[in-house]
């Protein structure tokens, strides 16, 4: 079977060749070595300079995240928490299974693994996007210099048609498997044999919600409320609500009166933002939205009547908190489930096991802290203010990725 290496050097390679090559691997790089930081920050400036990045906010965001000051910050934080008796070493070979569609998230996790000094094999879906080719272009171009020749020996971005044989092969080479792609991908890979001590970091299907404190939103002046709503727009519309961190349901917290007032104001404000951004749904999204509206209408336990001609507006579908857990509504294409609650602690009993991000507005740090402490479920991995839902952080899905990707050698 054919494996196609896409970067740093394009070539086809057989499993046997790959094996020979990996059996001789020596792990000579140490975590946060200077050349690693240099490489990523050069990559950062190359990505930012690309003219495409003006049109692709995801590319710009990645470039921005990879800039030197952020890398230094990650390094500083890492050593701040490191134990004195511990010497940090790379874990070895990390096999990344990247998600199929347009998303840069696996580049972030690759970068963290790279900073840890690991050798990386990144399996990219064969239906690659232009965004991914730009990134791979730049990764390859930089590796072509003598300074960064080590990239060629240690990093491989590759693709192959879905094949359990090759998946098994890489799974048995890997010391760590970083499995993106949701429940189904995770379960496929969990069935494959690995080394006994291979560590799996799995990213299952996750969903996210937003929670607004109605009284706080109602106090905002027009300009401020528009700004807050625009943050929400960025969180949810950037990936058409499909990113696991994009909020699909909005909880309004307050008295019934406050919630009704606030949600109608928020809806108006969001529609203004959509107008300003010239956002409207394409035909696929418009049809899927229509289905959502009809589905909601068929159940009828909602407060208002629907207008199917809302391709340029957000659609809010009312859901009773009691029914929220059983709701199978697919929120996408500008459809949001809307839930009224009286207290933030009410969130606890509606939380599903797969909740990732709580995007909030109007709550104080101590209120949220108290809520997280009192949370009795095993879900909610991130609690972030409006506008930051999509910001990648080394603490993701409940993992401190940086710590997972290094080996801690204890010297007493």
């Amino acid at each position: 079977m054919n494996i196609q290496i896409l970067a740093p050097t394009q070539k086809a390679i057989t499993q046997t060749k790959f094996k020979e090559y990996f059996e001789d691997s020596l792990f000579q790089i140490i975590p946060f070595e200077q050349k690693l930081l240099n490489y990523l920050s050069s990559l950062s400036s190359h990505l930012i300079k690309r003219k495409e990045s003006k049109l692709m906010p995801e590319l710009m965001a990645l470039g921005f995240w990879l800039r030197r000051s952020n890398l230094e910050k990650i390094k500083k934080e890492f050593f701040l928490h490191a134990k004195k008796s511990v010497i940090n070493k790379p874990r070895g070979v990390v096999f990344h299974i990247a998600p199929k569609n347009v998303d840069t998230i696996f580049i972030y996790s690759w970068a963290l693994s790279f900073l840890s000094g690991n050798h990386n094999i990144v399996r990219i879906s064969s239906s690659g996007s232009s965004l991914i080719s730009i990134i791979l272009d730049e990764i390859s171009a930089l590796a072509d210099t003598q300074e960064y020749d080590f990239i060629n020996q240690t990093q491989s971005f590759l693709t192959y048609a879905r094949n359990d044989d090759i998946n098994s092969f890489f799974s048995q080479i890997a010391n760590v498997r970083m499995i993106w792609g949701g429940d189904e991908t995770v379960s496929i890979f969990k069935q494959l044999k690995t080394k006994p001590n291979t560590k799996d970091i799995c990213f299952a299907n996750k969903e996210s919600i937003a929670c607004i404190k109605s009284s706080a939103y109602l106090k905002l002046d027009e300009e401020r409320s528009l700004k807050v709503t625009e943050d929400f727009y960025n969180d949810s519309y950037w990936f058409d609500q499909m990113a696991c961190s994009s909020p699909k349901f909005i909880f309004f917290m307050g008295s019934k009166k406050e919630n009704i007032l606030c949600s109608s104001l928020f809806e108006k404000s969001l529609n203004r933002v959509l107008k300003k951004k010239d956002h409207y749904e394409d035909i696929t999204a418009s049809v899927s939205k229509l289905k959502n509206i009809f589905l909601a209408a068929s159940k009828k336990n909602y407060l208002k009547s629907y207008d199917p001609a809302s391709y340029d507006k957000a659609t809010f579908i009312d859901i009773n908190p009691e029914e929220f857990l059983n709701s199978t509504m697919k929120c996408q294409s500008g459809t949001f489930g809307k839930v009224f609650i009286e207290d933030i602690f009410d969130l606890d009993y509606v939380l599903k096991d797969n909740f990732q991000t709580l995007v909030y507005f109007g709550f104080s740090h101590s209120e949220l802290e108290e809520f997280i402490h009192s949370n009795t479920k095993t879900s909610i991995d991130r609690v972030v203010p409006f506008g930051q839902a999509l910001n990648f952080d080394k603490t993701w899905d409940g993992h401190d990725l940086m710590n997972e990707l290094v080996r801690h050698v204890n010297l007493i």
Partner: protein
Amino acid sequence: MLSVQELLTRDPYELGQKEKESLILEHLCALTKRHFDNSVEYQNILESIDYFSATNISTVEEVPYLPVSLFKELNLKSIKEEDIFKTLTSSGTTSQMVSKIFLDKETASLQTKTLAAIMKSYLGNTRNPMIIVDCKSILKDSKIFSARGAGILGMATFGRNHFYLLNDDMTPDFKGLEEFLEKFPYQKIFIFGFTFMIWLHFLKELNKNNQTLDLKNSIIFHGGGWKKLEHLGISNQLFKDEIEKCLNIENVHNFYGMVEQVGSIYVECEEGYLHAPVFSDIIIRDFKTWKVLPIGSHGVVQTLSIIPLSYPGHSLLTEDMGIIHGVDDCKCGKKGKYFTISGRIPKVEVRGCSDTYTESEAP
């Protein structure tokens, strides 16, 4: 109101649009009322969506419609459990969700009869020897009919001495075909199959063997969508050309239909246009406002049918795009609207981190 039974005795294409509309409007209003009274979900939808009404409908355009995908999410029916005679399901090979259509005896019987009336105007009254480009085993599970099985059974009644061209492994049984054709030399043969299967398992296989057949005067009916062929860049014209080259058949009819409205299908005339028979009609809508578009505009296809008595499927917004080219003036002589289908609305692509690695990526 002229009943469906009475309509069945007439030529399905003789009524001009105006006359036809006032006729089917009565049926569609009665169906809307019937489903409103007997399906909770349908009632809820009509009550929740402002511009729909169950009673105050004065034009065909005002008949409430349902997005066809709703039949994948809900069990929509207007009959009691014990009155279900047959459940049709879409083949659903690409997605796990399948449409479920519940038929009572009356609806099932009307489906058969409307199809017969439509086919009669193309095939005449005689039943000809028939080649079915599929395998016989598809019919085995009689409890739940897949769209494919139901389609074959529905069509099989219009032919005789049926020969199933494909073996269970989808390879053509050319030896059997030879024997079949020896039995009916130079006769008009009725060939039926799904567009994609005819292309892949018949025409391409003939090509592979450098073989051609002379089935002059025969007639082909094919349907089931162009999605897979579009992928290969094969147009209706190319399909027809290839049939003429391989089989020497000029009489080729594509048809447009769906499991949600079995029976009242739209058949392509010799001018290359699909025609709405008296039992059904189409409307083209704008995907932004869902308003009706004028003749010649490209938009989302809505299909109306007066057949669905047992489920609220008499007015559906499909996931197909199409254009109405004219009304009452097709050169073929058939009255009513004539149109073409230009493709399917692209599927929602999942973006983000929980994606579908599991979907086959091999071509």
